[in-house]
């Protein structure tokens, strides 16, 4: 009986690993890595960081699925990017779009990106994602909209002190003017 249970345990483990290995190209990387992948992959592309970061926080690409990035990052859409003209030359746009789509939610093994990918939503705004709404729904307006140092939920790095590293854990939240939040 002892051997039987051991064999069952080993087979179950092997089955799980094999199933994971078939799921995607980066599965082995994820499986064998001890790197923490709980949040989002931080922005690593300089062009993306520069072009997006000039006006606002350069959001980790895993915050949206590739279909959303494709709707956002095209010449027509960028002429009116949430009320502003964010046009860029064709080569730069291609590079930014490539980076965003290649690191989009459904192509990432980072946990929060997988949660976003699982929602099957393709919104234009990150703040319209069900997951993002849910994890912020108990925060009163006085801490975000009416907080002069935050103003908007889209200002991730106003409260998430390690947002630039892709870390959005509650332990790293510091809401300006509300030091006791945590």
């Amino acid at each position, binding site marked *: *009986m*002892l*051997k*039987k*249970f*051991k*064999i069952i*345990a080993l087979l179950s*483990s092997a089955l*799980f690993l094999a199933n994971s290995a078939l799921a995607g190209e980066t599965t082995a990387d994820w*499986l064998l890595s001890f790197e*923490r*992948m*709980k949040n989002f992959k931080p922005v690593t592309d300089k062009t993306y960081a520069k072009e997006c970061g000039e*006006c*606002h926080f350069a959001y980790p690409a895993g915050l949206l699925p590739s279909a959303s990035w494709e709707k956002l990052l095209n010449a027509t859409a960028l002429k009116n990017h*949430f*009320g*502003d003209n*964010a046009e860029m030359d064709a080569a730069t746009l291609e590079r930014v779009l490539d980076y965003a789509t290649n690191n989009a939610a459904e192509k990432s093994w980072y*946990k929060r990106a*997988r*949660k976003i990918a*699982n*929602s099957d939503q393709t919104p234009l*705004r990150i*703040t*319209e994602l069900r997951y993002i*709404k*849910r*994890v*912020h729904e*108990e*925060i*009163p*307006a*006085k801490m*975000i*909209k009416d907080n002069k*140092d*935050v*103003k*908007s*939920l*889209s*200002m991730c*790095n*106003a*409260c*998430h*002190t390690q*947002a630039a590293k892709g870390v959005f*854990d*509650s*332990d*790293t939240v*510091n809401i300006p003017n*509300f030091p*006791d*939040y945590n």
Partner: protein
Amino acid sequence: MKHPHLYKKIVASLCLGLACHASFAADSALDLSVPAASASPKSFMLASNDSGVPAANVAPAAAAEFSEPWMSGDKLHQYMGWTTLALVAATALSAPGEGCEGAACANAPVQPRQTNGAHAKFAKAAAFMAAATVTSGLIDHWDDFHVEDGFTDPDNLHAMLGTAGALMMMYAVNKSANSTVPVSHAGIAELGGVAMAVAIKLTW
């Protein structure tokens, strides 16, 4: 001391209660008062690209100097999970011999059954720590579980595998502890340990 085990159980219960309280402390410090204007379901969720702030024109505020708390509910849950895995490893390493099966048992020397050796102690500690880890996870991460997210959601999988792992460990310990003869319990215990390890990896 007439009932030494009773005292141990009381101390263990107190430790568990303290651990749960620590993981809950962060919530009690939160100012939950909501201004009247934001009391409606829609108002808190300003999903605020729509709140009149032109996001593309406003430079993001620099986060103030901030250091993480040395201990939190999330950290406690994490440390307890690692401790559980360490205890599982210690239990496996301290396991007595392989025993015997079938006809081989006829010739096997009869060994006195040990129920309070290092293996048994590690096993009980691992099962207890697994239960405490699951409890702290349920308390601190309750808002992360959502049935609507489905079976493949990493947090849901983490919770299911962690709970299943803890239950398997407790079953194995109970099965062996309540038997007067050696019984096969390693497979289910190992499966529980693997489930715990996979649960950790899924949300690591």
